[in-house]
């Protein structure tokens, strides 16, 4: 009989700091102030999160516009057993949320309490952290106007 293999834990991490560039810097600074920014494309539609380049045409984008922190769930999935790294320690939903004023959805979290509360088309609003730090985790969505 051979002895069982040795095992050891190993933590992968992104341990260095980096500049976010002209557009994402403003996007994240705005989050710190509890505002969500999109970016206007040439055709007038608004992308959220804001992006430095148009994903279809690769044109530079820099016209940032504020969108609402309320919106509509376009699709979702339920996380019955969150992992330690995930943003909430109780069951929640990941969802594609289209914010009021935005033409695209963004992937984020909905703290709905139970799966039965989730539905495509439901209204959600941001619940901001008591202390914001300029990160995408400064808010989660909750059901309601």
């Amino acid at each position, binding site marked *: 009989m*051979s002895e*069982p*293999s040795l095992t050891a834990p*190993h933590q*992968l991490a*992104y341990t260095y700091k980096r500049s*976010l560039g002209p557009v*994402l810097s403003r*996007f*994240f600074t705005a989050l710190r102030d509890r505002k969500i920014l999109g970016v206007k494309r040439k055709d007038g539609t608004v*992308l*959220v*999160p804001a*992006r430095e380049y148009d*994903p*279809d045409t690769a044109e530079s984008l820099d016209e940032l516009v504020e969108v609402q922190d309320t919106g509509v769930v*376009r*699709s*979702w*999935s*339920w*996380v*019955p057993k969150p*992992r330690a*790294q*995930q*943003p909430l320690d109780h069951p929640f939903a*990941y*969802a*594609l949320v*289209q914010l009021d004023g935005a033409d*695209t*959805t*963004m*992937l*984020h*979290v909905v703290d709905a309490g139970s*799966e039965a509360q989730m539905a*495509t088309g439901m209204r959600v609003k941001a619940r901001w952290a008591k202390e914001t730090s300029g*990160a*995408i*985790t400064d808010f989660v969505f909750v059901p309601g106007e």
Partner: protein
Amino acid sequence: MRDVAVVGFAQSDSMRRETDRNEVEILIPVMQELRKKTGLTNDQVDFVCSGSSDYLAGQSFAFIAGLDAVGAWPPICESHLEMDGAWALYEAWVKIQMGYADLALVYGFGKPSMGDLPLTMALQLDPYTTMPLWPDAISIAAIQARLCQEGGTLSAEEMAERAVRDRGNAKSNPYAQVKGDFSVDGILADPYIANPLRKHDCSPISDGASVMIIASAEKAREFQDRPAFIRGFEHICEPMDFGVRDLTSSKSTEIAAEKAGVRADKIDVAELSAPFTHQEILVERALGLDESTNINPSGGALAGNPIMAVGLTRIGEAAARIWDGSADRAVAHATSGPCLQQNLVCLMEGN
């Protein structure tokens, strides 16, 4: 264009958890098997190219160890991609097209069981706006599946049919991991693991490796009487943000298939590496496949998903059916990124 063909292939079992061997130790016997089957020696190889992921290994430059399986002395010409081996094959094919090589050895390998794979996959997402939320791969796929189901693109029954077909086909594949006789009704009675996905909608987590030889026409017949000539080879990537993509179709597969000439004639065999049942349906449609094509005779990615090798393995499985004469025209598919973000299509013919 030079005529280039797939002429040799070997693969490991797809294993849920290989506890005693590291990534390279999984790769070495597969490489040895290929050399034994084909008689390949290193002096015949002009270029070596591999696909693997340091994120799975949990250390930087982990792929260098893979060269222990090749033998890097005397010095070799070598390249590596942080992608499935199917893309390494693409690089080797370009190298041969450009006249810098006549024969290339290509491999892909991965050991995802060392970590929590659905969570590790979050590391491929936008590092600022998405990854800090740690959306796991199954949750993201479930969001896509719901969009498809609620939008009327496909049904839960059609998804279950793919699982039944692939795992049934896999009974004749000795390397497959999940195989057997399942029923649509049985699958639909299972609980959700991430509503609307059930366990059967997901590919397994698999450790494994595969190795391939491609060669120019002049050298190809030294290895195969009926080489699998690559007649179309394309890969296309969609944008990073989910919100700007149509997640209910696979546009990039469609474009790649068009450019590769897939629809120009009947396809006898298709090997798809879509890791979720709804994605398999989207890929089938994007390739324009119907009942006249034998889809996933090996079981595809739903029967064994040795990540970083699974796409290369699809190409190997399709090529093998050209070698043995059971197919004249075969297409293989590989994917990368969340929700079929990037797709590769390889069209092969026996003549």
